[in-house]
């Protein structure tokens, strides 16, 4: 009996050990590497474009007759959904590092990597947007999608100055 419980105990220890190995606290061996952008470029990165294809949709947001779809870490598609039988992609806003969206009135809030940005959408009918405000470093840095922590060589002070992580891509 005692022997069995020892085996069970050993088994449990092995299981827990493998848990730790798989966890985000283990040595970083993410299969992803970061894409970096210098801050000056980041702050000029939000631009209206004509429609582009949807490739890697992240999140969805619905307001009035519009559906917004974020393209993982890249931007926001604007879909005119006045007729749900015939939705029309009206344009695309490049927002490096973007995942999430929310709107109040005509203002779109997005995460532009670590910054929160408020964008005036009232003139999208004529293909114009205006960044009304940027709150720098409102959010933590983007971490690898597979849950590993930021590798040391990419941490601030080690990587190039004034650079911001805007995406993670497979190595």
């Amino acid at each position, binding site marked *: 009996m005692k022997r069995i419980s020892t085996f069970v105990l050993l088994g449990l220890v092995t299981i827990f050990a493998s848990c730790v190995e798989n966890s985000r606290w283990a040595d970083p061996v993410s299969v992803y590497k970061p894409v970096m952008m210098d801050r000056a470029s980041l702050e000029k990165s939000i631009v209206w474009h004509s429609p582009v294809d949807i490739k890697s949709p992240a999140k*969805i947001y619905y307001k009035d007759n519009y559906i917004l779809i974020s393209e993982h870490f890249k931007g926001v598609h604007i879909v005119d959904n006045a007729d749900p039988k015939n939705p029309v992609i009206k344009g695309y806003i490049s927002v490096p590092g973007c995942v999430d969206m929310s709107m109040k009135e005509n203002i779109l809030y997005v995460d532009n990597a670590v910054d929160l940005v408020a964008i005036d959408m009232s003139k999208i009918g004529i293909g114009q947007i205006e960044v009304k405000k940027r*709150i720098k470093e409102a959010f933590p840095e983007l971490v690898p999608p597979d849950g590993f922590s930021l590798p040391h060589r990419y941490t601030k002070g080690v990587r190039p100055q004034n650079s911001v992580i805007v995406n993670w891509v497979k190595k």
Partner: protein
Amino acid sequence: MKSLIKYTAVAALLALAAACSKGGSGVQSDPFTGSGTGMGGSMARFTITNDHLYTVSDTKMSVFDISTASNPVHKNTLDIGWGVETIFPLNDKLFIGTQTGMKIMDVSNPIDPFKLSEYQHIRSCDPVVANEHYAYVTLRTDNMCTRGTNELQIIDIADVTKPVMVKSYPMGKPQGLSLDGNNLFVCDNSVVKWYNVTDPKVLVTKSVTTVEGTDLIARDGILMVIGPGGLSQYSYDTGELKLLSRIPTTL
């Protein structure tokens, strides 16, 4: 008081202007109406209640005052625990989906949220939606939650300080979900399941439709499903799920 009158007047003017532009347009629809807020999916990490934007990211919640929409002002950042994934608003409460459970936060003082309760489950990835009586949570196994489970849990939240599980239903690998009245839609692997949730102890399956979704929004009789295949829309107000349109993704 004076500023209230001013804001009301401005709001009224804006509403009038919006109404005018609507009347004047032809087939093409107008841009955003300039009032109110929209609706995110259950996987959202941003949400708005009245004049505040709440964001969550892993361990922190941030609060921004957006009483002037174009001028968000950072008001607070709180530590709210580990593995925070989603945020869902209901009146003056926020429901936070984390990898270990659901937290209910009180935001009656908008810039100073505090935790009312926490409902814990085994480690899984989970978004949450809720109404006044019940919260609906999907739990799924994922690369970050390898030892999780796959199920839909219905939690009685009549007393928000003491959430109690009513029943759990086994699922394949559920992700986003959306609630409209008694209609609950759940993305589960390669299908979307539609339930009538009038009796949370006995969910009635209304349909199971093949579409790979990660998240969805059910509003105004339209179900909008987003997933690796693109955007698919269905109507559900006739009692059956009917495909309206699809915008596919390209590689």
